[in-house]
Every structure is written in C-alpha cells, then in structure tokens.
C-alpha cells in the first residue's frame, strides 16, 4: 500500500499556488485562438465540436479506435462462438414469458423517438451541444432498450452479430477515409481544408462538411460497439439469451 501512502502525500501537496480558478492562467494563445478563430476558420459555431473534429481530429480518430478496440476485445475475451462454449450452464434467469403489455407498448412508442433524437444529436453537433459520440450512444441505447424490453434475439434480429462489426468497421473507415482522402489530395493526414477540391464551398465550408461526415462515421462506430458490448456482456459471450 505504498501507492496509497504516496498518493495521500501527493494529494496534500496539491494545494500550493493553484492556478487562480476564476480566470485561469491558461488564457494562453491556444485557447484564445480556439475561441476567436473557430467560427472564422470552420464556420462551426460550436467550438467544442470544431476543436474535437478538426483541430484535434487525430485525437478523436483514436478515440473512436479506443471504442472499437473495446468492442473487439470484449468479443475476443468472452466470445465462445464456434467452440460450442462451456457457458451452457448459465440458463437465462428470466423464464420465456410473453413480454407484458405495458413494456411492449411503451417501447414501441419510445424507441423510434429515441432513434430520431439520436440522429438529431449527431446532425446538430455543429450548432448545439452533441455530436458523433453522444448521438451514437443514444442510438445504441435504443437497441439496448429493445433488447431489455423483449429479449436479445429480437434485438439481434435487427442487428445481427457480424453486421455489428461491419457497421463499426465502416464507421472508422469513413473517418480514416476523410484523412486518407486529404492525404491523396496533397494535404497532410486529416487536413480537411484540402478537400475543397471535391466538397462544395470554400476552405471553411469544406472543413465543416467534412466534420459532419466524420461525426457520422463516429456515430456509426459508437452505435455498433455499444450494442455489441451490451450483447456480449449480457449474454456472457453466447449471444443467445440476454437479461
């Protein structure tokens, strides 16, 4: 427990000349630049999305890769597809009853609304809070809700196992595609400005269009992976019987 001891020591050392909290010392040109120049350079009012997708787009690409890795890893660790699996003894806890009326009807009403809202969140990332990640999670949550309400099979009917991975892969390919396209058109990796050659409008608009495209790619991956993680965890890899 040396580590905890060391950490307590570190915590108490934490309070020397704290950066002044209200107007922090980091009014250094970097954040100033982001605030003043974002609209100017990318015609995207929501600075956070602009910085997320464009200035530090490389970071976000690897963020999507983190989710993708988590999905693959969980399938890898748990999945027993093909080996017959010794997981059979985990018979589902819930008996195979007819889904009761109330949950069924509410689900039928809510799920489409959630999905539309999710698409709104993805599309509207430029002007309001939200974007690829949040939209993707909500979209994935709508599938999970379906799986919870009914059982895993019905949800799986919509999005079968291998199609999930394809969906996730396609998402990352869209993102990397933008990067590589910029590469081929002469700019550095992920340089959207160069994409003006194929996208309509000036340099800034190419950036904002490509950001939208990237957000969609992210949404694809996040949706697919969220659902695949849920289905792996819920059914302990057998992908048969969820909660």
């Amino acid at each position: 427990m040396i580590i905890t001891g060391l950490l307590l020591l570190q915590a108490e050392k934490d309070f020397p000349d704290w950066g002044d909290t209200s107007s922090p010392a980091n009014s250094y040109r970097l954040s100033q630049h982001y605030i003043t120049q974002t609209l100017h350079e990318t015609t995207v009012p929501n600075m956070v999305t602009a910085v997320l997708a464009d200035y530090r787009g490389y970071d976000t690409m690897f963020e999507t890769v983190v989710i993708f890795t988590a999905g693959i890893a969980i399938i890898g660790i748990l999945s027993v597809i093909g080996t017959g699996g010794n997981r059979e003894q985990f018979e589902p806890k819930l008996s195979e009853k007819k889904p009761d009326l109330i949950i069924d009807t509410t689900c039928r009403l809510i799920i489409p609304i959630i999905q539309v809202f999710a698409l709104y969140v993805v599309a509207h990332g430029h002007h309001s809070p939200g974007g690829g990640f949040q939209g993707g999670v909500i979209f994935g949550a709508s599938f999970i809700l379906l799986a919870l309400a009914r059982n895993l099979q019905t949800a799986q009917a919509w999005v079968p196992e291998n199609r999930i991975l394809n969906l996730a892969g396609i998402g990352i390919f869209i993102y990397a595609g933008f990067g590589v396209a910029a590469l081929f058109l002469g700019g550095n990796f992920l340089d959207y400005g160069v994409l003006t050659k194929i996208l309509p409008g000036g340099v800034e608009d190419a950036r904002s269009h490509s950001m939208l495209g990237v957000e969609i790619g992210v949404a694809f991956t996040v949706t697919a992976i969220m659902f695949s993680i849920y289905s792996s965890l819920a059914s302990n890899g057998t992908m048969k019987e969820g909660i």
Partner: protein
Amino acid sequence: MELLEGIADRFNYWIYVILMMIGLFAMISKNNLIKKLIGMSIFQTAIILFYVSISYKEGATIPILYHDQVHGAHHEEASVTETAAHHDAEQVAHEASADVHAEASDHAEHAASSDHDDHAVSHEDHGSLEIDPDLFVNPLPHVLMLTAIVVGVATLGVGLAITQKLYGEFGTLEESEILEQIKSAK
C-alpha cells in the same frame, strides 16, 4: 459573497482530490472485483472534474456562439461583437452576403490564409470578427474530457468482460476466494 464564491470554486479542487482518494482506495482495498471497477470509474470521473474546473471562467457562457452573436440572415457568416465599431465596412459586407457564395468565401479565404502566417496574440484585428475570449468558457479541456469519458467506459467494459470470465471459472467475485482456489489448485 465574493469570498464564499472564491471558496466555492477552489472547493472544486478539494472535491476532486477527495473523490480521487475514494476511488483509489476502493480500487486497491476492495475485495469484490466489481467494486474495484466502480472505484476505477469514480477515480476517472474525478480527474475529468479537475479538467473541467480548469476551464471555468467567471461569468462566461458555454463555448457555443449564440444566434445573436452570429449575425447575418442565416447564422452562416462571421459575427461581429459590439466592440468592433470600426469594422462597419466588413460588417455590411457580411450582412449582405446571406449565405456562402464567392465573395464571402474568398474574404474568409484571405482571412484564413493571413491568419495562418501571423501568430500575433489572438486579437488580430484584420479579421472581420472579434469574439472576446473572456466571454466564453475555454473549450479545449472539454474536448480532452470527451476522450477521457469514452476511454473510461471502454476500460469499464473490458474490466467487466474479464470479471465475467473469472466468474465463469472460479464461481466467485471475491478476490480472496479466487486466490485461495488458485493456491489450493496449485
């Protein structure tokens, strides 16, 4: 009031350290595997709290340019704050160009290219727009924290998958029982 407000903000930094302590303590000393993972998530959200409290500026709004600041019929074109009186010429030009067409974009082009070369401190006055940075909360930590949250969930997912596999083998979630089983098995 001012004093208390000061403490309230500085309080964030106390809170984040306390949360980190709770999280770390749980991670190391809790016996149950899932409790450890909950401790880990608390530990990670504490760090996110620290980052967000860096970006807080007194009385600043959220880092999204509101409709009124983005003048012009569509909120497409660059905005001008009240301070930039002497930019009337550009202002008129911008109001005229409702949506994106050649004249506006090459103006933006010019502004963007000139911006690339000069790195003067933010207040370049050549550009048509001049948003006062102190009005907005600093957006950079927010971007970093989006990544940190996602990483947190990914680690939680992998941790839970490992816990399930261990439960499948050892039939228990308690680390102490697992270790006994290994010792007895060896």
